[in-house]
């Protein structure tokens, strides 16, 4: 990078010109709405203002007072947190297992696994939701039939979505199934970059497999593991599509997570400001995860 300062010095403006289009696009289409969202959360915008174009009245902290004082909001927050923890743990655990497994299989099995992972990765969310709705269909779904073949279980005409816990189990399955390939492929990529000598040396020194993993393998992939985990957490915390689609665009209140709640307040009830306030709280809650992710990324970036 330092070979040619002369070529760069005379034109210090060039890099700024190069990033200008990206920066402008981000500023207008993302920065402005972000500011707008914050403003909106302190106002009271309804359908009337949307169509007349009149400035919505200020509401101060009113929106926040309403939602933070509402027990249901905290139920949704707790539900979202629980959902995120379960989904992320399952995805990362299974992803790690698949990634470790891929290292030990023959090349052709690894190729098969990689092919399947990529195919699953490529499945659009609404396709995945459609497939799982069909698999878990009350009358003709494969899952009910399969489970009913087990002794002592009869799930004929069992509707998985009557009980939200079971419904969320299905939604978790869709989310984890969809996210697993990304986790497994990235972790496998990180595993292949560990120099084999490292693990061989530990084995020669008499490390047991569990010790090998704990003291050699895992520390080597830890930066990427942390990064993927935070990314997953951020995505799962803001989950919207899977719930929306699995509930046919009309999720019951028992199925509200923060993303769905904010969307419904805005576009079904037309209380845009309440929706914005909920979205703002969501983003603030996400910031905790974001800090971890950023630090990890920047640390990786500096190692470059």
């Amino acid at each position, binding site marked *: 990078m330092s*070979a040619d300062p002369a070529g760069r010095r005379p034109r210090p403006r060039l890099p700024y010109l190069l*990033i200008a289009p990206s920066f402008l696009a981000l500023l207008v289409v993302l920065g*402005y709405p972000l500011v707008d969202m914050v403003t909106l959360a302190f106002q009271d915008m309804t359908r009337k203002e949307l169509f007349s174009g009149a400035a919505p009245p200020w509401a101060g902290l009113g929106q926040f007072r309403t939602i933070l004082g509402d027990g249901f909001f905290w139920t949704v927050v707790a539900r979202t947190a629980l959902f995120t923890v379960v989904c992320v743990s399952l995805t990362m655990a299974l992803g790690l297992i698949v990634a470790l497994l891929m290292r030990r299989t023959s090349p052709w099995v690894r190729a098969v696994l990689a092919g399947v992972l990529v195919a699953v990765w490529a499945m*659009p969310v609404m396709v995945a939701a459609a497939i799982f709705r069909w698999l878990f269909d009350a*009358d003709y779904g*494969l899952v009910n039939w399969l489970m009913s073949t087990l002794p002592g279980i009869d799930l004929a005409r069992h509707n998985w979505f009557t009980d939200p816990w079971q419904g969320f189990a299905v939604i978790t399955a869709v989310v984890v199934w969809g996210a*697993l390939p990304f986790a497994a*492929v990235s972790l496998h990529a990180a595993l292949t970059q560990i120099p084999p000598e490292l693990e061989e040396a530990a084995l020669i020194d008499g490390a047991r497999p569990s010790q090998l993993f704990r003291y050699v393998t895992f520390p080597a992939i830890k930066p990427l593991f942390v990064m993927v985990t935070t990314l997953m957490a951020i995505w799962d915390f803001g989950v919207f599509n899977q719930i929306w689609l699995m509930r046919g665009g009309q999720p019951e209140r028992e199925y509200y997570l923060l993303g769905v709640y904010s*969307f419904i307040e805005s576009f079904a009830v037309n209380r845009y400001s309440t929706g914005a306030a909920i979205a703002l709280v969501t983003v603030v809650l996400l910031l905790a995860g974001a800090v971890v992710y950023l630090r990890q990324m920047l640390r990786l970036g500096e190692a470059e």
Partner: protein
Amino acid sequence: MRRPRRRYDLLGLLVAALLGFPVYWMVLTAFRPATEILSLPPEFWPSHPTLGNFARAMGTETFWPNVRSSAVIGLGTVLVSLVVGTLAAFALARFRFAGRKAFVVVILTVQMIPLAALIIPVYLLLNDAGLTDSLGGVILVYLVFTLPFTVWMLHGFIAAIPAELEEAAMVDGCGRFGAFVRIILPLLAPGLVATSVFAMVQAWNEYVLVYVLLSTPEKQTLSIWLVSFQTSFGTDYGGLMAGATLTALPVVIFFLAVQRKIAAGLATGAVKG
């Protein structure tokens, strides 16, 4: 080593079968006549394959307009984000300048903002600009959501190209632009392909935003078509699975075509910064 490996192979195949099964079940159902779909116990292999479900799915009124719409949005997003993204990626990979780190932080942070949280203000913004219900508006918004990833990934690819190559070209009389076009661009081609597929897939798969932004049925994308299919056809699972297969097909083909490059991109772009 032989014996345990066979056990792992078996386990690997089992995992592959389990993970791939939903996809198999989708394709199987898509090729099945309705009578077989709704019969228990189910069969696990095709016996009387039919194209009837596909004909029904493709026969819906808005299918072809929506394919066109998806293609326009996908290609538009890819094209613009590649051009804009390559410029920024080049700046990040080849220059040290004040504000570089801040820009990187912006790029990385933006990737984390959940799209669903921004729908309302984005909708209001496009509403003010008269860009709701227009494909251009959707492309503009998608651009912003694919750009950070594009820049980050391409910056990895460009950083992997030795700067000496460009410098040699410049010594030989190429301008900076000439060196970029003749040296960087050809070497960057694989990276551009991988990145564009990723952007394309994101645009192809997105649902909420187009659902809010596009109201004319003919302008909507395949993802909305598929979801409306679920409601308008009730439990026509044959048609639904055929529609799902059609929606997923282009993405799967793209993905499989460049999967190696995506893995390489993850390794160079994301892992090593």
